[in-house]
């Protein structure tokens, strides 16, 4: 376990001016980022936003076109082998050999590290005790993902990279994996993860960066980001098309912070539902608008993304 004595004053991750293109496609377009030790940091964004390219540059798997990356005070050009010993990596869609057993796979990965956890300990952390003698091919999706986590943990890393750890898992398996990440956070490890599930980022991360088209478009704690869109509650409604309707007057209602139309729905960002909803109803009625839909929900990071980009996360 990394105790406070092993934490130097270097930050866990420092990125400056990072750029990477693949042919014509700009994947990362000038990125600056700092992650402190002990943080659980989330890179959020839709598919193709540049999350995986960014994290693979951090993992030393991709060379950037320009910019600098420093992990734990070390860089990839000069201290690659020392760095590899100190970080743990879980990649998107790695398939381990199906005919190796769980403990054999972990013993193999453990042999690459100078120091680390025992194989038994890593199996216990990933809650795979019952499967330790099973072949990888016989594991469920969630168990395979926990095995990938165990392989990332077996070198007892100070810094852990998780690239879309719960994509493709069923809800129960996702929750199990979240619990594992919670435990690792509790043990003081630095975790950097990517996800396109906003609820996952809200649940796990101390801070998140929202990425779009290779840039960071918002950065902060989930609470700060949600507060930044003004109004913690969202009222959504749709009205029949026959009546002419002036949306501008809605924002004159006290407590309504902003209004937008998204995918045919009117969205109002409000601070307090109980004082704001009755005047909204009254106003709609006085306008003669015919409501076809009406609902409210607490603002999420999803709404942050929509308000920043005008698109849904999984539009593409």
């Amino acid at each position, binding site marked *: 376990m990394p105790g406070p004595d092993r934490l130097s004053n270097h930050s866990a991750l420092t990125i400056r001016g990072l750029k990477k293109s693949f042919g014509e496609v700009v994947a990362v377009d000038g990125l600056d980022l700092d992650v402190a030790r002990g943080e659980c940091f989330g890179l959020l964004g839709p598919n193709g936003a540049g999350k995986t390219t960014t994290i693979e540059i951090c*993992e*030393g*798997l991709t060379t950037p076109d320009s910019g600098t990356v420093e992990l734990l005070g070390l860089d990839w050009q000069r201290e690659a*082998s020392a760095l*590899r*010993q100190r970080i743990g*990596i879980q*990649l*998107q*869609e*790695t*398939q*381990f*050999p199906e*005919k*190796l057993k769980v403990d*054999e796979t972990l*013993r*193999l*990965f*453990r*042999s*690459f*590290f*100078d120091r680390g956890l025992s194989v038994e300990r890593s199996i216990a952390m990933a809650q795979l005790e019952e499967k330790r003698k099973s072949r990888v091919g016989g594991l469920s999706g969630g168990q395979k993902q926990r095995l990938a986590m165990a*392989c990332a943990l077996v*070198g007892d890393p100070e810094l852990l990279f998780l690239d879309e750890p719960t994509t493709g898992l069923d809800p129960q398996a996702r929750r199990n994996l979240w619990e594992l990440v919670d435990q690792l956070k509790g043990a003081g490890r630095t975790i950097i993860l990517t996800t396109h599930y906003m609820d996952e980022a809200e649940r796990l991360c101390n801070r998140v960066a929202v990425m779009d088209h290779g840039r960071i478009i918002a950065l902060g704690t989930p609470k700060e980001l949600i507060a930044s869109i003004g109004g913690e509650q969202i009222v959504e409604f749709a009205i029949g098309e026959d009546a002419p309707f002036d949306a501008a007057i809605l924002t004159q209602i006290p407590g309504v912070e902003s209004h937008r139309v998204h995918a045919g729905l009117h969205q109002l960002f409000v601070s307090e539902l109980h004082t704001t909803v009755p005047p909204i109803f009254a106003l709609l009625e006085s306008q003669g608008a015919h409501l076809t839909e009406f609902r409210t929900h607490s603002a999420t990071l999803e709404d942050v993304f929509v308000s920043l980009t005008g698109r849904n996360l999984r539009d593409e």
Partner: protein
Amino acid sequence: MNKLSESSLYQLTSARFRLFFREPEAVFWIFVFPILLSVGLSIAFRNRPADVLQVAGTTAQITQALNADRGLRATTMDEATGAKALATGRVLLLAVQRPGGVTFDYDDTNPDARTARLIADRAIQKAAGEQDSVETANQQVHEAGARYIDFVIPGLLGMNLMSSAIWGLGFSIVEARQKKLLKRLVASPMPRWQYLASFLLSRLLLLVIEVGVFLGFSRVVFGVPFRGPIWQLALVCVLASLSFSALGLLIASRAKTMEAASGLMNLVMLPMWIVSGVFFSASRFPNILQPFIRALPLTAAIDALRGNMLQGASLTNLTLPVAVLMAWLLVSFAIALRIFRWR
């Protein structure tokens, strides 16, 4: 656990071993198939008393004359029926009575038909009263080392060394690349050379079993001779296996899918199965092609194996094939390392 079993090279190599032995198909192709093939060939080409050849004559006299030789069995048929029997292969030769003598109808590209022609001619001359001017007698010899099975065993061994090395390396590496396992391994502190070395190590260890079982079987069941020094035979096997492994590595160095890899492997191996002298001598191909055929690794491997086993040649007499194998090893390995794609 002791230190050795904790080392990454040991773990990588033993993972290779486990994966191989947990793949029943691979075990079959490498250990069982060559033995089945050699048994099949030995049955097809077994040394047996010369066949009695089926022939026909157009008159009863000719048929009688032909039947007088124990090597022939003749029937009488008219010329039209005989031509049909000849065309369908029921008889090898038709002896036709003509005004001036006897005409033989037969296919001179068929060795059995040519034999039938010689025997039939002798039988008819003898019936006409011709005497042998020199008394001759037969003594039959079946010498180990000169039989077809002796010829084909080194060929099969060479073929097996090639397929096991190329398939073993090629498929495993391309599969690991396709399933992103290579990328995951490179992201760990694993020394990259150890990954490739684990393939060569496990290949060499499997080689001991593979060659031992196959040659042991050939020795016990067929009595195939080992005339050259055994340690040199072992050395040739190791060298050949390493050359083919390097070739397999080269084939696998960039392919991204199993389909592409198996296409490439067939492209490389199929021509060699045909021209490199596995089942018949490579010298049957035209002279103009010989330099190319001799430069192929499988030809070199089989030449060296036959030289050692059948002619008892020492390595100093096998410098050409050994040099060819060395060249393939070094050149393929150097190119493969340079262009290898880890992700």
